[in-house]
């Protein structure tokens, strides 16, 4: 075990001690139980520290937890007490927290030769947690499998059938995972450097959640090989809406929005140019409000939230605010957050990370 690994483990132990002192206070616990909806998001505070916040539907801060570094995506499941926030790449920790009870948070990590890519999904019964990971020495994407009933011990992995798996979602029915392989190779030695832009190839892959066998691979046409498919959401019919990030010139107007379903080819959504240009070639979050038949896509670079009709793909509305990215379906439509501190209709003195998880 090298020093880097020793340092990392020591750091995680220290963070765990700090977390155990931050269990939910009783007033906060009561407040959580009285909410129609509870949201979670990672944040950076003005002193440079990172944390996880639980918020009400109107953006009120209910509870926060410290994190060892920046958190990113949230995984939650109705059949599990646990929700998870994953570290942003190239960190290797995740925090399991329980917003409903007094269970002690669990900080767990990938093996030393893997790191998280920031997203994951539960099995339908809440027993297993699937996480997008990087096997960085071999430059291949993995789906790590963790046992939610045993302190999130890692019990296996399978290939993501691509490079740089990012968002991962469980499809309706609970048998199939959908993985967005962003296609970009990274290595912790060069934390934020994209190592293979000359040969990158993104894909959407459907994987059997039980066996890990690849069911379908949907790739982009050659002329859009620099498009990285990273974020997505599925509706109840299994139509997956995808938001991409383009690695080519800002002068190009890449098609950033697509949809796909099993046994149906990936199809770009032809957005009006005036809306597409406002994404600045970068979509940071995608979510669906099934009840209202709406899809929302956000761009922190362009400050745009674009709302589409999920049936027709037509634009319903666009909204602008600086640094907007986090999105989640709310009771009545969507809630959004910005890196400048806006969450719902409230301002906070923090920078919100790119994603919001809805916990109830």
């Amino acid at each position, binding site marked *: 075990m090298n020093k880097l690994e020793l340092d990392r483990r020591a750091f995680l132990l220290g963070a765990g001690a700090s977390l155990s002192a931050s269990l939910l206070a009783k007033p906060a616990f009561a407040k959580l139980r009285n909410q129609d909806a509870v949201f979670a998001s990672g944040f950076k505070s003005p002193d440079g520290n990172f944390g996880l916040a639980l918020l009400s539907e109107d953006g009120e801060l209910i509870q926060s937890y410290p994190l060892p570094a920046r958190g990113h995506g949230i995984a939650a499941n109705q059949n599990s007490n646990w929700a998870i926030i994953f570290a942003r790449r190239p960190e290797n920790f995740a925090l399991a927290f329980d917003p409903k009870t007094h269970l002690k948070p669990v900080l767990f990590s990938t093996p030393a030769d893997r790191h998280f890519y920031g997203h994951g999904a539960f099995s339908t019964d809440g027993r297993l947690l699937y996480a997008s990971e990087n096997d960085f020495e071999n430059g291949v994407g993995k789906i790590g499998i963790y046992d939610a009933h045993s302190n999130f011990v890692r019990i296996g992995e399978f290939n993501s059938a691509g490079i740089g798996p990012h968002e991962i979602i469980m499809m309706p029915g609970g048998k199939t995972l959908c993985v967005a392989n962003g296609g970009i190779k990274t*290595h912790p030695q060069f934390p*934020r*450097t994209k190592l293979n*832009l000359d040969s990158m190839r993104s894909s959407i892959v459907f994987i059997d959640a039980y066996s890990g066998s690849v069911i379908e691979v949907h790739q982009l046409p050659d002329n859009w090989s620099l498009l990285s498919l990273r974020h997505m959401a599925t509706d109840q019919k299994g139509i997956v809406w995808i938001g991409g990030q383009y690695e080519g010139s800002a002068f190009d107007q890449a098609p950033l929005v697509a949809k796909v379903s099993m046994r149906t080819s990936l199809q770009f959504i032809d957005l009006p140019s*005036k809306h597409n240009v406002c994404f600045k070639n970068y979509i940071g979050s995608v979510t669906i409000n099934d009840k209202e038949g709406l899809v929302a896509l956000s761009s922190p670079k362009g400050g745009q939230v674009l709302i589409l009709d999920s049936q027709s793909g037509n634009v319903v509305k666009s909204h602008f605010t600086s640094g907007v990215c986090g999105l989640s379906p709310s009771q009545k439509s969507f809630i959004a957050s910005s890196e400048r501190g806006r969450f719902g209709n409230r301002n906070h003195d923090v920078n919100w990370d*790119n994603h919001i998880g809805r916990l109830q």
Partner: protein
Amino acid sequence: MRITIILILLFLSLVPSQAQSDEATKKVLSNVLIEYIQPRYLDLHRHAQKLASETEHLCNKPSASNLGVVQASFLSFTHSWAKIEWFRIGPVISKNRIERILFYPDRKSTGLKQVQRALALQDQTVTSLKSITQKSVAVQGLGALEFVLFGTGSETLQTDESSFRCSFAKAITQNMVEITKTLSDTWISESIASNYWLNPSAENPLFRNDQEALNVLMGTMIHGLEAIRDVRIGAFLKEEAKFDRPKSALMWRSENTAAMITKGLEGLLELFNVSAIETLLPEENNSLGDSTRFEFHQAIRTLNSLQKPIAGILTSESDRKQMEYLKLSVGYAMSRLDNDMSQQLGLSAGFSFGDGD
């Protein structure tokens, strides 16, 4: 009904971003175009032409002195590139031009292996401009050319007339001429790219308003510094000396590592200075420009004593400490730009900056 529901997104302004540019910001953008982008790409193209011409001459009349001329010209071209390489907007991002000029980092030496294989097998497809552009980006640019000119077997360039190795070098230099011509031509005055750069507007894919333009400009400087610190220095300087990797350093064969870092910092400082972005600061904070410059100068001064082979730097305790200090200095310059100046200008605090999450 649906529209009513959507209005619940109360926090979102219904007013699109302002599509306008004030005179002060216009001046900053114009400064950058006229005093940095255009002259830097023109300089790069001229260096590429000189390198290609001298390489052709070497191939026709191989000699030790002609090889020395080409090697010196190679270094000059790389330094010209280092001064603009962190400006990653426009055509340089298209068609893998950045990787075709310089494929780095190459963690598993994939590029080196391809170059060595091409040399060993005398692969004729790397000896013409037309065919080399169809090959892996790793054999098309400066990494490959450095090995050809400075690596094992490069001494044969002094004697072998019309050698395969020299033809390989010639094809790479011609490729550099073509790419840099595109870069230079794209940014000439009145071009589409220049107009995009100078005129933020609602339809402009580059920037819709001043704030986006300044964000891109500030992001260029911050990300450039970050890459110099984490990728260029971080490639060889590890937490402990025993983990250092001198052969992962950029252009260690030509003893050009420290010079490339220096020129990279000088290029970013030049961008900062010519932009005069500090003139946009509130009057009470206009000393931030000087404090930022101070951090740049500290880093460049530190490098002045480190212009030597990287392996020697890493085995000298005092030089290695200087290199560690350099890393800190670059971080201080980043902090001045990211934490202080960006905040004062009301720009993104670097939290997301849209880097692939």
